């Protein structure tokens, strides 16, 4: 009750109508220390996220794409403080107010999390097998003291129906559902607190194509209806192209290129983006792939190479690429890339 009123107070005290993106992130870093020996000596860091800056506008979908190990999942979790950030700033702007997420106390962060939710990748491991669908979806309402008893059941049933499940799903356990249905439970759970911003971490990657299409349509409908913003984390570029307004391409903890969906797909400027796009097999046997081969694997984020992180695999790298990290160059009002050769 007290939390609910506090939330109302927060949203009524509009300090200014200053517009700005819903979320702005500046220089976000997340290092995981490596400790060795009996004294747990700090010997180095895994620089999973190494200075990310991006913005997500109102009702917008920004996608973070990249290969495994590039830090995209860590970025999403750090932004919602499921992992504590090492450095950086993240500003959330509901109704013209500015909230600095990384400076909030635990209690205030809990309040902010009502607006900031997450959908997880694996619908098999992200749902507690010992709870019913109703319990899973209703838990957030209970924890935040928003509803209880019959009212809670009512709201949960509405949510389950909204994501396309039968209302009698309430008392069934997670293992009784298929993968697509479980992902719908995960979506209902994220929607329970009426958020404005949802981090979708590989939300459709584990699903078969026909089921994937159903879930993608659901996410789009919900965005239109509830005016949601998404940070969509994915490695499947065709899904990303379909869903996003803007795309940020990550490589080894940093963003190497950002632009509108059209810019990134039609006119990729960073050699890594170009190689990544060329590697996507097209569902058309007549158009054989013009694949730009990349040799080797993504280097370890523990000892990233000096200079441009992509240089060791880059087909066009020159000598100076190995010496200094390139600055981000603005290529159009919406597109930017970090490469020495631009």
């Amino acid at each position: 009750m007290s939390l609910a009123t506090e939330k109302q107070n927060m949203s009524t005290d509009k300090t200014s109508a200053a517009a700005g993106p819903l979320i702005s992130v500046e220089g976000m870093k997340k290092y995981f220390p490596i400790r060795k020996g009996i004294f747990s000596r700090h010997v180095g860091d895994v620089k999973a996220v190494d200075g990310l800056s991006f913005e997500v506008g109102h009702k917008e979908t920004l996608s973070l794409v990249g290969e495994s190990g590039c830090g995209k999942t860590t970025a999403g979790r750090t932004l919602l403080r499921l992992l504590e950030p090492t450095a950086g700033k993240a500003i959330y702007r509901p109704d013209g107010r500015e909230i600095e997420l990384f400076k909030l106390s635990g209690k205030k962060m809990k309040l902010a999390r009502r607006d900031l939710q997450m959908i997880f990748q694996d619908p098999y491991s992200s749902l507690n097998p010992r709870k019913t669908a109703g319990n899973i979806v209703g838990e957030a309402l209970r924890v935040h003291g928003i509803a209880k008893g019959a009212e809670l059941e009512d709201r949960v049933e509405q949510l389950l129906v909204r994501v396309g499940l039968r209302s009698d799903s309430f008392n069934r356990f997670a293992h009784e559902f298929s993968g697509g249905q479980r992902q719908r439970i995960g979506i209902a759970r994220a929607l329970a607190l009426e958020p404005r911003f949802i981090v979708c971490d590989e939300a459709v990657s584990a699903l078969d194509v026909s089921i994937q299409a159903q879930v993608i349509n659901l996410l789009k409908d919900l965005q239109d209806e509830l005016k949601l913003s998404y940070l969509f984390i994915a490695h499947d570029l065709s899904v990303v192209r379909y869903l996003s307004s803007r795309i940020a391409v990550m490589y080894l903890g940093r963003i190497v290129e950002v632009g509108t969906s059209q810019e990134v797909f039609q006119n990729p400027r960073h050699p890594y983006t170009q190689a990544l796009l060329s590697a996507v097999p097209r569902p058309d046997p007549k158009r054989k792939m013009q694949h730009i081969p990349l040799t080797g694997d993504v280097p370890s984020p523990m000892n990233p190479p000096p200079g441009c992180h992509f240089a060791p695999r880059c087909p066009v790298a020159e000598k100076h690429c190995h010496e200094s990290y390139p600055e981000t160059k603005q290529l159009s009002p919406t597109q930017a890339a970090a490469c020495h050769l631009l």
Partner: protein
Amino acid sequence: MATSNQARSAQRAEIKKGEVLLEVRNLRTHFRGDEGIAKAVDGVNYSVLAGQTLGIVGESGCGKSVTALSILGLVPMPPGFHAGGEILFRGEDLCKASEARMRQVRGNDISMIFQEPMTALNPVFTVGNQIMETVMLHQGFDKDAARNHAISMLEKVGIPSPRQRVDEYPHQLSGGMRQRVMIAMAMACSPQLLIADEPTTALDVTIQAQVLALITDLQRREGMSVVLITHDLGVVAQTTDHVAVMYAGKVVEYGDVESIFGKPRHPYTIGLFHSLPDLAGPGERLATIDGIVPSAFHFPTGCRFRTRCLLASDKCVNEEPALVEAESGSGHTVACHHLEEAEKL
């Protein structure tokens, strides 16, 4: 060793490129379970031509992997059992072969690459050891020759510094490298047929492109046939010659890759293509196939796709459609009662 190789190459000469190497006829592999009998594979027909690639597509639970395991005799029995049909490999019915004979075939004539390279490799043996095992068993190599062979195989699949890597354990390698080791193991005896079950699903796109290029390159050099099981229609379009679309334990459509992608005929295949985000315009809604794949314990009567099909009629409930040629002589076969209506989907 030399004689066995000669014998093998003599045997191989019998099968020319484009002839049938493997024919699966009406194969049924069922499982006994708590709810009765699961008809995981229930009447699958397809053939693989020498030197060519057959793609098998379909959603999870449609029986793709069980068909592959049946070919290699790797289905655990019980609970599984062979309920009918034949698997003819160079004319020999593998369903009737003894376990000893299957052991000769596996790894030597037919080998397999599994989806998850971390669980398919043994974590307590070096990768070299695991490659050496197959050649020592099947080709009678001694330890030194096998080790040299393992090193040359690692080199062939593009692993840098193979002399050092041969003594490393699977956990020391990245995902892409492990999948390369799996390929090296599968290729070590130069099999005639390679079954690749979702070989790139766990990999990133750039690594996937490398692994697929490697498989097609090795195939061209060694003249081997490949059965590629995947749910990714892009991978199928880029790497296969023929395609079999499976649904609920059956092949519902079969044909060469260009005719399947150019003019899909079965409502299920058409639905799969429509749900691809690649082919949708921006802002366009994705077409979906409603519902989910039925459980193998309770497949619907008649056509199994009818519960999700827009064209389903009474005929579909009562009568199971046969796999017949859509146009005579095209080799493109479809199992559907409503082919003409399906063209308008």
